[in-house]
């Protein structure tokens, strides 16, 4: 299992479009992908879950990857966050 902490840098936070990009990327991997924000934990492959997080710019999230391709999944998702979903 891999755990990462990240901060949201894109302006719109995890609103509709970035949420969709995140879920789409996560779906390419077998590894389970969970996102924790404050007391909530949701499945990172579920758009309804990611939308519910309503993570604003500057929010801190804890990401957890678990599965055979967890390394690749973690790398791809972290990259997406770091690029600010190409929205900045």
């Amino acid at each position: 299992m891999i755990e990462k902490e990240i901060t949201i840098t894109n302006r719109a936070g995890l609103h509709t479009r970035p949420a969709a990009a995140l879920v789409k990327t996560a779906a390419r991997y077998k590894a389970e992908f969970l996102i924790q924000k404050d007391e909530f934990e949701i499945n990172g492959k579920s758009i309804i879950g990611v939308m519910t997080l309503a993570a604003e710019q500057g929010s801190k999230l804890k990401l957890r990857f678990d599965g055979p391709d967890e390394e690749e999944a973690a790398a791809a998702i972290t990259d997406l966050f770091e690029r600010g979903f190409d929205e900045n």
Partner: protein
Amino acid sequence: MNTPHPAAGEVILKGIPAAPGIAIGPAYIYSKEAPGVVKKEITPDEVGSEVRRLKNATARSQKELQKILLFAEQKLGSQSAKIFEAQIMILGDQILMETIERRIADENLNAEYLVSDEITKYKKMMLAAHDEYMHERAHDLDDVMNRIIRNIQDQKLFSRLEGESIIVSETLTPADTVIFSRNQVLGYATDRGGMTSHAAILSRSLKIPAVVGLRNASRQIQTGNRIAIDGYSGLFIINPGEETLQNLERKANRFKEFEEQLTEIVGLTAETPDHRQIELSANIEFPEEIDFARLQGSAGIGLFRTEGQLLGLARYPSEDEQYEVYRTVADQIYPHRVIFRTFDIGGDKLVPETYQEANPFLGWRGIRVLLDRPDLFLNQLRAILRASAGKNVHIMFPMVSSVGEVRMAKEMVEQAKADLTKQGIPFDPNIKIGVMIEVPSAALLTDQIAPMVDFLSIGTNDLIQYMLAVDRDNNAVAHLYQQFNPAVLRVIKMTIDEGHRHKIWVGMCGEMAGDPLATVLLMGLGLDEFSVLPSMLPEIKKIIRSVKVREAKRVAEKALTLPTADEVKKHLISYMQMRLPDIPLES
């Protein structure tokens, strides 16, 4: 003027006319309440068929939404259709569906109960957020949930709508408005909302009669009750009697005949019989409205509300996205001009970010937001400047209340120009800049503001509300919102006179500019430009082409001597009835 006498059982409610036209027919009460869901246990060998019901219902829901999206794109353009994106994505959520399927198998419960249980969980979390955007997404969830449940129960949403109906509802979202317009909708009536709510604007562009602000109309009737709505005067009539129906039909015919006559003058200019050219242009919010505005004989766009682009977006559109919209509008209207008003957000207008205010109309809105958000402002200014290469683009600032704001806004324009010059991107270096006069302080400072700008446009909706201290969406005081109040007339006159003294033109883009009863008065006060709803263009043009400036001046001079709004109105009505009896008046 034609107030009908109520017949037995007839009830007349007064609301705000939001989109012109008359509709008579059965009501369809639209409420967002979920279809009834009962928790039921199923036997283990029913699990397979229950999962199939869920899967079929989801597939059908997806098909329905795709159709709605396609339709919205055709009718409103792809930008506005984005409001449906979120719903389609939720329907495609594999994790959500797998969870529900697993629970059907594990807990042996029926599909609709579990759909409601799962989605409601997320909805509650969204509603707990203090964020307008999240609350809207919660409504999206509701819509999706109800759609799936309805499909599981195999009910058709609009089965009862297959005849023609008038939609009556507490409130309508832009999405509802569009969705319903696919059916045979005769009209819309809502308990809440004002003239400038998005649903009202959309119903005008869809050309469906609408009355809003009816307080509790939706609770006074039931689906199938016979009602009538009058979108000219804002009436909602329950069980209309014979006499009322005859009056309404006469009225509808009168407007229709008049509209037919008007088609002849669409191609003519707005020139008075004593050869004064008056600029007559259209107020629009979406590029898709240009065709209709042109068809109605518009000589240009006097107000393009750029905040329409924010509809349903969770973020501000990028410079490039904005440029695409502005360029399309500028190209399509060429060689006529378009005035882009920078984002007028705050107050009752949509914003991607939420800022809670006790008194939004006296708060963070219009130019105040833009000056506090230089990045956002510069992005928009650069996008507008890039669209100005054809030299038919003007910029206008909303909600200006001081000279300092005009100075700062102009500095921002210079900075945006410098950015583009550095990048070698072409634009109109002499782009014309104007301000809205819609705050009393700006009106009183017109002599200081006029020398700094190229034009002024009077925004009567806000100007009147601020001058008279009346919120016209507040039913208790709405009748005090008087556009013919002598104080309002004096401020309009002063603004026009000061503008002319400094050799700049003065226009008006508030609703008053599109009220046929006000046209002659405004001509007489010297207004140079009228910017109105596209549907009002031919009528206003006909009045301008019929009345000499000299004559209009006499009407205005008399009006300025009268002490009350009622007396001004009476004076104007009697003039119009004598001089232009063909023009249908509403008041």
